[in-house]
């Protein structure tokens, strides 16, 4: 990249893809491609088996009790919108409260804003302390009896903070609210088990976990999914259609209108196999060690300010920082010239940026294939930026 070896440190945005995943999708398209759940022919049957096996593998990967609790969508964003537009529209009423946190990605804010506009519901935000952890007093106080839903990110895409979602689930259930988890930054990097968290919904994207773009997942507890209205209307999701009415299939199909992204599901399931073979615990430990190393090295660069927990055991491999008065975009340009890809800007978390009172930040985010040498390359490039800007 720009004459230098690529150092890809933008994994919180999207990950690279191993051959294992690419081959699985290639194999699907070459040998099993047909429309799922339709053809009587043999090929249609094979495609359907591949698609449903993928669902089963993804269900096991996140510890779901039933494969039917896994709905395939495009990405975590669509998953959170699905929850808002189906469960939300049916259950959220005027003056009900939806509790979010100030560290949410736009995808876990805007769907609820749209729902609140429609229903007259209220949204409240749990704030963070100086180290980027959710304030426990606010978790207790803001989740009250008027709360119908608590929706929280498992791991922040800016601060890296890992939130104690199992405890927050307990708080939500204590007042009779449901609990949804945006797991886009956790499922790729650490063991996640929906039963242990006891969440009601959980959403994540395939492309951040070695899988292809255009495939994501919503997990929902079976009894909830059964009572929820459908999402989009069309083929695949119906039981019977007459001129003026229709009935729906059971979950997950009533939420999957139209020809699904079967090759994407196959790719995602291959990614879960690949990750499981290495072991999610192992991946989490490796990234934690890399993050600890990076935090220590980066903190020594003169003029650097980092955000989020100082304790590497409380975070995922996301390090957000600013360097002197160098704007994040200028820094990204300088690093790019060294072949280092980082993210700069508001990271789709403008409310958090406003809360931290920074217009923009730079972010390095790691995955299982990153190395300490790459962290060293990042640090050298930061030193070069300091020189260019006479810091």
């Amino acid at each position, binding site marked *: 990249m720009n004459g230098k070896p690529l150092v890809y440190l933008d994994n919180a945005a999207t990950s690279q893809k191993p051959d294992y995943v690419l081959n699985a999708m290639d194999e699907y398209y070459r040998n099993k491609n047909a429309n799922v759940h339709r053809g009587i022919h043999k090929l249609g049957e094979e495609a359907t088996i591949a698609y449903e096996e993928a669902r089963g593998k993804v269900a096991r990967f996140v510890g779901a009790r039933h494969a039917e609790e896994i709905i395939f969508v495009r990405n975590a964003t669509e998953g959170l919108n699905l929850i808002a537009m189906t469960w939300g529209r049916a259950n959220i009423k005027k003056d009900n409260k939806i509790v979010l946190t100030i560290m949410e990605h736009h995808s876990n804010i805007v769907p609820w804003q749209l729902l609140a506009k429609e229903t007259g519901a209220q949204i409240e935000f749990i704030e963070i302390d100086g180290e980027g952890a959710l304030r426990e007093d606010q978790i207790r106080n803001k989740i009250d009896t008027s709360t119908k839903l608590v929706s929280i990110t498992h791991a922040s895409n800016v601060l890296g903070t890992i939130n104690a979602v199992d405890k927050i689930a307990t708080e939500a259930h204590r007042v009779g609210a449901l609990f949804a988890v945006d797991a886009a930054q956790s499922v790729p990097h650490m063991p996640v088990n929906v039963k242990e968290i006891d969440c009601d919904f959980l959403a994540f994207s395939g492309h951040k976990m070695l899988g292809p773009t255009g495939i994501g997942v919503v997990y929902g507890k079976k009894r909830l999914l059964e009572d929820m209205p459908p999402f989009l209307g069309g083929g695949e999701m119906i039981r019977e259609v007459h001129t003026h009415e229709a009935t729906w299939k059971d979950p997950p199909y009533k939420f999957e209108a139209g020809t699904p992204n079967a090759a994407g599901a196959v790719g995602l399931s291959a990614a879960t196999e690949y990750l499981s073979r290495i072991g999610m615990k192992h991946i989490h430990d490796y990234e934690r060690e890399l993050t600890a190393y990076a935090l220590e090295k980066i903190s020594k660069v003169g003029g650097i300010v980092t955000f989020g927990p100082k304790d590497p055991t409380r975070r995922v491999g996301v390090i957000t920082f600013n360097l002197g*008065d*160098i*704007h*994040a*975009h*200028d820094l990204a*340009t*300088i690093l790019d*010239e060294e072949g280092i890809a980082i993210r*700069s*800007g*508001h990271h789709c978390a*403008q409310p958090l940026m406003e809360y931290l009172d920074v*217009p*923009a930040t730079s972010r390095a985010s790691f995955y299982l294939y990153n190395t300490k040498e790459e962290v060293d390359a990042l640090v050298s490039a930061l030193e*070069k930026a300091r020189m*260019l*800007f*006479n810091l």
Partner: protein
Amino acid sequence: MSSDIYKDIILDYYRHPRNFGDLPEPDVRSKDSNPLCGDVIEMQLKIRDGRIDDLRFKGRGCAISQASASMLTELAKGKSLDEIKALDKVDVLNMLGIDPGPTRIKCALLGLKVIKLGVYGYLGQSITDDVKQLV
């Protein structure tokens, strides 16, 4: 594109912006942002006899966007409104003396867009597509 774009002159305008702040009674104010990165520029113009008599800018963002806007205020002062309408990308690149490359060119052009928005607004004319497409 290279880090040569961070020449001393760019850094100087970034850290010590000329014509930064507010005018007492501007004839027109205009403001725009780059949705991709959140850079913001506001321009305030004082217009006399069809010319830019005085102007100030405010904003926040990267070195390229802020330096470019500041340098543009110096370039624009005294120019006729028609001359401002005729300024284009090439004029800005010549003024900066650098080529920021395809991903950063919009940073360099934000100031130009905002001053044009001000001029079109003052004249009560609708904004042309080439102005809209600057950033």
